[in-house]
């Protein structure tokens, strides 16, 4: 406990059991650390993760041996894939019983080796102060990640006078030094030569707190900025150089810009396959430049012509003064033309997930924290919520963990009691972790749940529709009566299935002081576009059919011209009656 307090930990998420009894007993003596009792250990890990993503600080979770520890596994794997700072503490059976198949013994160290940045089994209490200090240090420095500390029951009980180290030193762990000037110079020169540059900014920009430098760089050399999914918020979406998200369901303008660009700068991102599509055809006309903290990411999936290893906080600061002021007006005009030609759209006349999220964006997009689950609603959130600040978008990108969204929102709310926090979840994923409703009610965690109920495992259904000839197999998903469920748990519930009620529902949900479940009964068969089919080149991006099939729609742009969406130049303008959710946009 002393170790946790030393680290400034104010909240831990956990679940007790036999071997952690000594720790739970000791906890009573440390009122400054709040323990949140969850309903499933997986959610303790997701809450710690949500807490970390919303603050940039280490999230802490705790579980007992055996099943308690294995229940953490999905949450730890989620965290490693997205480089989230987390310390997971597990109890284990007495040291003497380890290896003897004792009751509730499991080799959690062995199990979590591939999904932790590092892990420990502490067999001597004198090592404990050092190990805990190291665990926090490793989790929160360099490329961040989860660290697990497995502590046998007898070690919990034993006393030690061993001091906490003043400084963590591991010969095998060196933090990146200053990036080589020559490498930075090469990049500055490439920028000077480029005619059609783009930046793809990832979560590394957020974790290194270098969003200011990114913005300076983009503005100085007038370079459009695309975000990876997890990079959303590192560059303000309402900035005129912002192109939104890149990737399988990225906005078309960004995808096309990368394919057309002569210089693509990946900054704090890892050229993940969901972003690059087929790597052989990725950015075919471009020189690729890569900035990353982790040397093993450089050249892992694409081959850059130049790269800068090291902390972005240093490398970007070095780069900005070396870059000359520059304009790419023609290129930016071309990119904007694509934006106008292939906007995100909300078809009118139906009650769609997009209808809800577009409205939610206008309602709370500018200030709230949003966590998502995984599926179609996740992609629509990334598209329609116009993130302008870091630490406001929490989503399982790398692992794609259904069940993540709701507990992560709870974790974020514990970190930011004063902020509005929305969990955007699907009917499928919500049913994986909805037992945490009890946690939310009990601790009076004021999270707003936006449940987009389409009656399907929507993302899987979309693939079956498009790539398996409409043969739906195990994607129809029944749900409980969510109103009764909310009643049973004792939280506020709204149901909404009409555009007319949308605004009022969101207003009341925000105003309510306490957790709220808002169920939006949306169109069942709605698809996410644009879409790059898996493994295909980004040039094969499929645009939203609504753009060409004569359907009525509202085009939705980020808000730099009108505050909420933007007029499409050239389109005959005629305001719809649905201005509520499409203000400033036009109907085709």
């Amino acid at each position, binding site marked *: 406990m002393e170790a946790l307090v030393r680290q400034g930990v104010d909240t831990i998420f956990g679940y007790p059991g036999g071997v952690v009894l000594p720790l739970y007993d000791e906890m009573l003596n440390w009122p400054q650390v709040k323990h949140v009792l969850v309903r499933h250990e997986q959610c303790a890990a997701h809450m710690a993760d949500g807490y970390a993503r919303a603050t940039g600080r280490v999230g802490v979770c705790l579980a007992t041996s055996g099943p308690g520890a294995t229940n953490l596994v999905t949450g730890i794997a989620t965290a490693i894939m997205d480089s989230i700072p987390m310390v997971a503490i597990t109890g284990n059976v007495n040291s003497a019983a380890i290896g003897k198949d004792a009751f509730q013994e499991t080799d959690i*160290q*062995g199990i979590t*080796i*591939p999904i932790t*940045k*590092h*892990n*420990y*089994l502490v*067999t001597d209490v004198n090592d404990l102060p050092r190990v805990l200090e190291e665990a926090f240090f*490793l989790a929160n420095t360099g490329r961040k990640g989860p660290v697990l500390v497995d502590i046998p029951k007898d070690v919990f009980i034993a006393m030690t006078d061993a001091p906490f180290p003043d400084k963590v030193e*591991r*010969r*095998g*762990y060196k933090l990146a030094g200053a990036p080589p000037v020559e490498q930075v110079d090469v990049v500055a020169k490439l920028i000077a030569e480029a005619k059609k540059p783009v930046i793809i900014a990832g979560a590394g920009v957020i974790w290194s707190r270098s969003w200011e430098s990114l913005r300076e760089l983009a503005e100085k050399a007038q370079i459009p900025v695309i975000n990876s999914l997890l990079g959303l918020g590192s560059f303000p979406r309402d900035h005129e150089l912002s192109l939104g998200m890149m990737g399988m369901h990225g906005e078309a303008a960004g995808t096309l810009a990368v394919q057309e660009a002569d210089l693509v700068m990946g900054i704090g991102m890892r050229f993940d396959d969901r972003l690059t599509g087929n790597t052989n055809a990725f950015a075919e006309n471009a020189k690729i430049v890569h900035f990353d903290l*982790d*040397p*093993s990411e450089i*050249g*892992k999936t694409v081959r850059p012509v130049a790269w800068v290893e090291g902390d972005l906080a240093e490398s970007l600061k070095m780069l900005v003064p070396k870059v000359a002021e520059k304009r790419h007006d023609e290129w930016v005009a071309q990119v904007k033309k694509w934006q106008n030609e292939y906007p995100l759209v909300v078809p009118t006349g139906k009650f769609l997930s997009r209808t809800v999220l577009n409205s939610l964006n206008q309602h709370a997009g500018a200030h709230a924290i949003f966590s998502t689950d995984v599926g179609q609603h996740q992609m629509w959130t990334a598209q329609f919520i116009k993130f302008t600040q870091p630490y406001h978008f929490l989503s399982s990108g790398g692992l794609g963990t259904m069940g993540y969204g709701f507990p992560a929102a709870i974790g974020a709310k514990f970190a930011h009691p004063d902020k509005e926090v929305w969990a955007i979840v699907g009917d499928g994923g919500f049913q994986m972790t909805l037992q945490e409703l009890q946690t939310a009610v009990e601790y009076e965690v004021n999270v707003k749940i936006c449940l987009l109920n389409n009656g399907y495992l929507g993302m899987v259904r979309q693939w079956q529709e498009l790539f398996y000839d409409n043969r739906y197999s195990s994607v129809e998903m029944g749900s409980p009566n969510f109103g009764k469920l909310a009643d049973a748990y004792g939280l506020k519930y709204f149901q909404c299935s009409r555009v007319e009620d949308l605004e009022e529902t969101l207003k009341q949900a925000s105003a309510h002081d306490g957790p709220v479940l808002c169920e939006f009964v949306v169109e069942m068969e709605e698809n996410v576009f644009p879409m790059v089919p898996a493994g295909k080149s980004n040039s094969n991006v499929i645009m939203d059919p609504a753009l060409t099939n004569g359907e009525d729609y509202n085009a939705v742009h980020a808000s730099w011209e009108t505050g909420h969406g933007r007029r499409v130049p050239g389109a005959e303008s005629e305001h719809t009656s649905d201005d509520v959710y499409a203000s400033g946009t036009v109907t085709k």
Partner: protein
Amino acid sequence: MSDVKLPTHSHAISALVQNETGTINRLVSMFRRRGISLASFNAGDCEQPGYSRLTITVNGDDSVLGQTIKQMEKLIDVVECQDLAPDDRVMREVALVSYYPSQISREAVLAVASEYEAKIEHDTENCLVLQYTGPVRLVEKYLEAMQTFPVREIVRSGPCVLKVSDQ
């Protein structure tokens, strides 16, 4: 005897690692997970208490090698790690071969063994054991020669490598 060059796609990596519970497990797990196939893996104590020096040989092109080294360096236990080129290293392997004396011509076997300066390590009615230490390619030639007789068992240690360059 001068060291022999391995085929260009085989690399000998020497690594210094801090010993903790799980260290070897962590390394091997990383190799398996990333689909890096190991030709050999060798670990033992070294001059620094609490640390081990490993020799790992992997097959693959330069990009596989580059990833292997970067992924190894990323592990918290790995203090240093480098691919040692033939000129920068001494690399040796031990091979033990046993025979049922009744099944062989002792003179013929010992004649071949002495060509390689292999040593007799065990010599009883039922078992003759010969030990040879040398560069990997010679170990292979030696074993080929020794297998012209009906062997009982063969075991190879896998190569051990030591840096000799000045840096």
